[in-house]
């Protein structure tokens, strides 16, 4: 059973996503900040991370994904980014001189069917 870590400071988003994923047989763990997320990545070795780019600060989600890249063990864990910023604004938020590794990107609200499909894709690789 695949283990999925949701990192988001919005508990309602965590709850909704958890319900969708658990109903489909995934094991779900969650974290409310980038730091907590990194700790859970280390402790629980999830198979997939669903990450909100904009938590308390814009860079929280970004720096978490970057720090995951620094660790060879965590580098292989796919990251699915989710944000409530409209698509067009999304690009402007990223520091252009830094490489951000993400495997997929979704905009909130995420329809359950789309979420499940992307999760299945990323886990199936």
């Amino acid at each position: 059973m695949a283990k999925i870590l949701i990192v988001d400071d919005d508990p309602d988003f965590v709850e909704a996503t958890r319900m969708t994923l658990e109903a489909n047989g995934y094991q779900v763990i969650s974290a409310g900040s980038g730091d907590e997320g990194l700790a859970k990545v280390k402790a629980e070795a999830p198979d997939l991370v669903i990450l909100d780019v904009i938590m308390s600060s814009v860079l929280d989600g970004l720096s978490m994904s970057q720090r995951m890249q620094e660790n060879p063990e965590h580098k292989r864990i796919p990251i699915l980014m989710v944000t409530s910023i409209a698509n067009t604004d999304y690009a402007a938020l990223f520091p252009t001189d830094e490489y951000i590794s993400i495997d997929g990107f979704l905009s909130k609200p995420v329809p359950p069917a789309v979420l499940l499909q992307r999760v299945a894709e990323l886990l199936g690789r």
Partner: protein
Amino acid sequence: MADVLHTPTEQELRDRTDWLIRARWLVASGELFVVLVANYLLPETLPMLSLLATIASLCICNTIFTFYSQQLRSVSASSQHYVRFTHFQLTFDILFLTIFLHFFGGLETPFFIFYLIYVVIASILLPNKTAFIYAGLVSLFYLALLILEWRGLIPHYNLAGFRIPIRFQQPIHIFTAVFTLAATAFPTAYFASNIVARLNEREKELIEANLSCETRAQELAELNARLERLEKDRSQFIRLVTHELRAPVAAIQSYLRLILEGYVPPEKQREIIEKSERRALEQLALISDLLDLARLQERREEERKVELVDVAEVLQGVTDLMQARAEEKDLLFTVQIDPGVPPVQANLEHVKQLWTNLISNAIKYTEPGGIVVVSLSQNPNYVVGMVRDTGIGMTPEQLAHIFEEFYRTDEAKAMERQGTGLGLSIVKRIVETYGGRIWVESEKGKGSKFSFALPKAPSRKGI
């Protein structure tokens, strides 16, 4: 910068000195040419040996000047040095020319107009009125020469066949010659220094115009940079607003979809709907705060309903509303209002909002059993309000951001899910709108103290 032309730079003085030395070579060759032509026209008349020796010694002296100038350059002499050197050279030149004229016939030679060259040079090289001194000096030297010859103190060389030899013995001729020289030299000094002064003035204006252009350009660049920063802040703000506005709607929509698609078991549906409602209320609060903020930002003073507001009375009203909440949380809630606090000039709703936001924050972020103290007092010019709590407090880094829109500390979020992060931005803007200021002291885990000062309304008696 404006003095640049009145006190020439060392570089300019060096250039002028070099130019003077080059001009002297020219003068020497000119004199040699004149002597040779005169000797051809009036053979056997001129004391050729003396004249050639004079020119030769001029050349020798000029060589010495050349070396001296190089020496001045190597020790990077001061501008005073250069001015003194120029004076010395000019005086030397005039003395030399006088000797040259002496051998060339004294009163009889027409070449005394050579003197004018030095008056012109002085106007160019030396400060403003110095040229007049040289006009006087050349007249004096010439007069001295003629008097010495007339009195027989030095020999007179007659330009035989060109002038009658007794002329130099007649004071009237001496007077005429010196008068002619002086009458030419002084106007020359006047015109030459005027022209030079005007040229300098133009150059100065040009330099100043350039400078002011540069200043203007710099100012424009700064203004532009400031506008760019503002624009960046503005789009950052819009992005934040978009994010904050989308988040609750996205959460509600996710919940609705879950229910619609049958992910939520019937016994859990009520809970999910309640959570959705909470997010909807959060959204409404956010929109209302954003509207307040926008109004505070945009409305001009005449559009705001400003009246005399009794801050104590407003505080009393707000306190009555807050009392219940404080009791719910088992807080020790005290209000101290100094008697006789004068009114302020403000909008009643704004003052109400100011107290409400500060006090509700204090109640929200203080653990049960804590203390919240509100006080109102005055100092000579201001009405001073203070809200102190024994709540979660803030680190110095968090303090630096506390008045920013949407900023909430992680501890605040952990303690109270609800919150737009706009309450303190609104408070700050209200206080500043009425010419007051707000400050905050806080220690993490110990509590916070928000204080504000609003200017007292001008007393009616004074009007």
